[in-house]
């Protein structure tokens, strides 16, 4: 199998993640960009495509144009993209399409936000609640955690999974984050601490929910024939796919099966691989339940088997499917669209063998998945070590 024509993920970078009150949102974009450029062995003038996402703290209607102005660059192609938690993966899919079609050589995909320091916690929670339907959800006080809690309650009912199994996911993610120097939360937690943290929306407790962090991440996607110009041209995009079933929870066709099924199936078909070929998976984990339903809906586990597997440690570094090896949104951090991009960054580093204590041995094939809304918009990527 040769991948000579597939786009390269040529550089990755992330800022520190956590409370960064000294940084602006655009400043975090710049920091992440510099990290990715240095990693790729490129300079800013090599970049001829720029894809940005969105910011709650600095809500420009044309963020990518503002970012290019801030950096003093005039790319051949730029746009901003909004797909909630699926944004990061979708940016990579679009960047690859641009370089494979010849519209650009090196596309910078950059995401950042500073919701922790740039807005109040209440402000961030209220902004997220705006994802709800303005007439049929928001007037009822449906928060994002409450929407996922409705998914969780139904999932527990249908599968017999337990809150202990949800808690095991949170504990595993924290253990991974403890091995990453940039993670927001690195202090180990126990099942008991997760299950006795305060209730946010039953059955979800505080430690079932992702963090709110400041931070940024950038990935450069380069044309296949630029390999000679790059420092580490080793990771390629083998396949990508999307799946979309709804935006609002009240319109979701199922509470246990989601567009991740179609997104992953399309990405796997394009890559010519299957779930059992994957060595490491970086899958969106806005809540513990998010990962659990997606693992089964995608097909990594049979219905009802992901929870017991998590409890047995099978999502750990030496498990059957090492998952969210950086600690995910639950413990590495979640800063808007950068949250999903951290998963891409980690997958690239795993495939290059750069992860030290958290390295998955002989990782050759990685799966990345992002979802936005309430399991509404999905994008999957299959990355390969070339």
């Amino acid at each position: 199998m040769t991948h000579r024509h597939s786009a390269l993920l040529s550089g990755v970078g992330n800022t520190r993640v956590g409370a960064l009150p000294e940084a602006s949102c655009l400043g975090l974009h710049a920091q992440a960009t510099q990290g990715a450029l240095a990693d790729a062995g490129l300079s800013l003038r090599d970049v001829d495509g720029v894809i940005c996402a969105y910011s709650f703290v600095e809500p420009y209607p044309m963020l990518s144009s503002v970012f290019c102005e801030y950096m003093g660059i005039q790319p051949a192609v730029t746009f901003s993209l909004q797909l909630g938690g699926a944004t990061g993966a979708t940016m990579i899919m679009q960047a690859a399409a641009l370089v494979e079609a010849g519209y650009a050589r090196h596309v910078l995909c950059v995401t950042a936000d500073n919701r922790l320091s740039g807005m109040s916690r209440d402000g961030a929670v209220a902004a997220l609640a705006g994802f709800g339907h303005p007439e049929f959800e928001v007037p009822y006080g449906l928060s994002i955690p409450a929407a996922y809690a409705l998914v969780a309650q139904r999932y527990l009912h249908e599968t017999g999974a337990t809150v202990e199994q949800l808690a095991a996911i949170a504990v595993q993610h924290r253990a991974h984050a403890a091995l990453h120097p940039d993670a927001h939360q690195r202090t180990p937690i126990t099942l008991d601490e997760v299950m006795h943290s305060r209730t946010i929306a039953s059955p979800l407790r505080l430690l079932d929910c992702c963090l709110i962090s400041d931070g940024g991440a950038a990935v450069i996607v380069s044309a296949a024939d630029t390999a000679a110009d790059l420092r580490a041209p080793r990771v390629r995009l083998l396949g990508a796919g999307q799946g979309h079933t709804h935006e609002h929870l009240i319109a979701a066709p199922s509470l246990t099966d989601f567009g991740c099924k179609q997104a992953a199936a399309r990405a796997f078909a394009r890559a010519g691989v299957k779930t059992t070929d994957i060595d490491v998976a970086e899958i969106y984990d806005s809540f513990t339940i998010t990962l659990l339903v997606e693992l089964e809906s995608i097909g990594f586990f049979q219905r009802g088997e992901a929870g017991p597997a998590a409890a047995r440690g099978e999502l750990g570094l030496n498990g059957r499917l090492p998952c969210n090896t950086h600690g995910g949104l639950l413990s590495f951090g979640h800063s808007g669209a950068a949250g999903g991009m951290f998963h891409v960054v980690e997958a690239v580093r795993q495939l290059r063998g750069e992860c030290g204590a958290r390295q998955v041995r002989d990782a050759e094939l990685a799966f990345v998945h992002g979802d936005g809304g309430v399991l509404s918009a999905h994008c999957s990527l299959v990355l390969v070590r070339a």
Partner: protein
Amino acid sequence: MMPLPHPNADSRAYWEGTALGELRYQRCSDCGHAQFPPRAVCLRCAGALQWARSAGQGSIHSYTVVARAPSAAFKSAVPYVLVLVDMDEGFRLLLTLRDPQTAPTIGQRVRVVFESTEDPAICLPQAVQDGD
């Protein structure tokens, strides 16, 4: 201030109905498909829609007890129970379960009641356990 709906051309008949104590939903006059939220076209056949009146009975598809309010407007309301209700006519609503007499369960029967709001033109449908 509670966030209240601003009816538009798609939803106006729904909110006019709730103000009269009627729960209305869209049904396609061509294929019979029941749909919610209201839209300009039938999702199944793109046919013509008409408004039908629901009997206001359904079963809980899922529920949660919300302890952390999404905004200042709901801080005095927590904890409250949100339920996704599968209405007998084949559409799904998100409602608050008012004054539950027993713990909510999936499959439990509920019926719709109508609550006035700060806006005299808007009544919000809510759920109560059947038999109340």
